[in-house]
């Protein structure tokens, strides 16, 4: 079953079209990789799926867990089980990471973390950050670890991950990607991951990838194949390529 179905989605930011008529589907329990050069609209795509207000859906339809969410609020989408990690999460002064993690778990500020939760916080190497203000003075890797841990605590059905691997060291990458894979496997969740790097593919078992280019999705195939050719030929070649495969847009329906 498709957990996410996107049909003919067009999105404007500040009154300018970023892409028009994007369609794809995502099966429950599967992870997919979204490639694309800088500025191709990858962040816009996941932000629009999450329902962030500055991304205006002008046409098309988004169905999540069988429910039409095209015009639902961020909060409603989150409550249905869709979450997103930010490439550049904001700093929130005065709000401690511990407080936010508790809210993600549905706990109140006076509740304690369970032993299991404490263990996971430790795995993410965030124990000493619990009393720090969210993202204030966090390094790139610390921010990403904090983002992914928050998402896992939210127990989502679908994780939209905007470059979870950028600006992180090898150790953190292994940790982040490994935990994403573990969560998805254990809970039958799905993930849509934006990346520029292939290293994450070592840990995340994604079946498909595709490239966002010129406002459309192309070349649905195994992400390693896409990554290898991008690495070899670069996105310039992608842009020039005449053999772009644009049919077979729906992962879910493809044989």
């Amino acid at each position, binding site marked *: 079953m498709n957990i996410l179905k996107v049909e003919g989605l067009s999105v404007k930011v500040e009154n300018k079209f970023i892409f028009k008529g994007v369609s794809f589907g995502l099966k429950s329990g599967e992870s997919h990789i979204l490639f694309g050069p800088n500025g191709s609209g990858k962040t816009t795509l996941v932000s629009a799926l999450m329902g962030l207000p500055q991304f205006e859906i002008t046409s098309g339809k988004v169905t999540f867990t069988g429910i039409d969410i095209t015009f639902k609020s*961020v*909060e409603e989408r989150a409550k249905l089980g869709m*979450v997103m990690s930010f490439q550049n999460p904001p700093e929130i*002064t*005065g709000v401690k990471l511990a*407080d*936010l993690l508790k*809210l*993600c778990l549905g706990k109140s500020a006076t509740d304690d973390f369970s032993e299991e939760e404490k263990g996971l916080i430790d795995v993410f190497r965030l124990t000493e950050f619990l009393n720090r203000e969210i993202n204030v003075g966090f390094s790139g890797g610390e921010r990403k670890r904090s983002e992914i841990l928050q998402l896992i605590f*939210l127990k989502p059905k679908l994780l939209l991950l905007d470059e979870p691997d950028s600006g992180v060291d090898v150790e953190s990458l292994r940790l982040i990607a490994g935990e994403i894979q573990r969560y998805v496997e254990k809970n039958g969740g799905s993930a849509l991951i934006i990346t520029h790097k292939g290293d994450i593919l070592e840990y995340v078992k994604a079946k498909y990838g595709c490239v966002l280019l010129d406002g459309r999705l192309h070349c649905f195939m195994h992400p390693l194949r896409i990554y290898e050719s991008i690495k070899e030929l670069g996105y310039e070649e992608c842009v020039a390529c005449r053999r772009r495969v644009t049919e077979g847009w729906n992962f879910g329906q493809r044989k």
Partner: protein
Amino acid sequence: MGKENELVNVPHQILEEAYKAGIEADGKNRSGTFFHVNQSTVYSRVNDLFQGKIELMDTKTALQKYSWLGEYMWKLVDKNKDEFTKKVAEDFSGGYFMRIMPGVEITFPLQSCLLITQKNLEQRVHNIIIAEEGSKAHIITSCVQHSTVPKASHLGISEIYIKKGAMLNFTMIHQWSENTLVRPRSAAEMADKATFVSNYVCMRPVRDVQMYPTAYCNGENSAVSFNSILYGNRNSLLDIGSKAVLNGKGSKAEMISRAIAREDSKMIIRGLIEGNSSDCRGHLECRGLLIDDDARIQSIPELIARKKGAEITHEAAVGKISEKEITYLMTRKLSREQAVSLIIRGFMDVSILGLPDALNAEIKKIVDASAEAS
């Protein structure tokens, strides 16, 4: 003046409100407790553990007891300053006199509560605090008007003396009502190496409060911090400032304010640091967060340097609550209201008040509860 040991005279529901404003009911974790209701002091008691270490009584009683106290009256605040000081100089109903004896360090805070329960009352008090040489103390004082009282005003003179090497942390919590006119007139004087921390927390709607306490850092290496956490809502008008006069060699001043303006509230946050000695230092920081379009925050920082080498700086930022932060929190399953409330509670960072842990937790509770309730 009423009896000084009868807390039972205070109606139960009014005491409830005082408890919400930081007053501890049984006073066990306080070194002393003082209650002034309307025009009379109804309770004034020093905890047994602190007998002989501190003095706490009505100002009028103290003036009778100590002939020298007259010199401390109207020394720092000019009685002809404005119509409000003139009124208090003419006639006042008492106030608290607190004295921390030389070298005494009190582990529990002293608490005082000034209450208004009477309609159309103009409460006029004159408070005097003397922190003797080398003493160290925390004071928490709450001013409360019972919410059923339609209209009242509070005029309060406070003169605070911090002697050589003493440290005083003074936290004032205002819980007035939407019909209270509030005019505190306060000043403090610091001797050599004396430290004064003056905290102001205003979390409930008030009709109109205007204050501008002044600290005179006359002593060498004396220091003052003014910290305020201000929450304006409904039609509140808050005009809050503070002034530090750095006369002493190596004296220091720091002012930090966090202001939240909601609904139709208007806030003016002033600060003036005056550097009159060659190696004094001062810093002023004001951060304001606007929640609604009809609210307004105005920041007026002023810096004066009169001697070479005086180092006085300021930073101010006022602006609307960040939509990006709200949306971010909403992706974490929070509703918009929950997100706004979390940002507000974080913004009103109680740790700027420099309080001991227990008191810090108490004040945080008050601040969080007010942010939650509105």
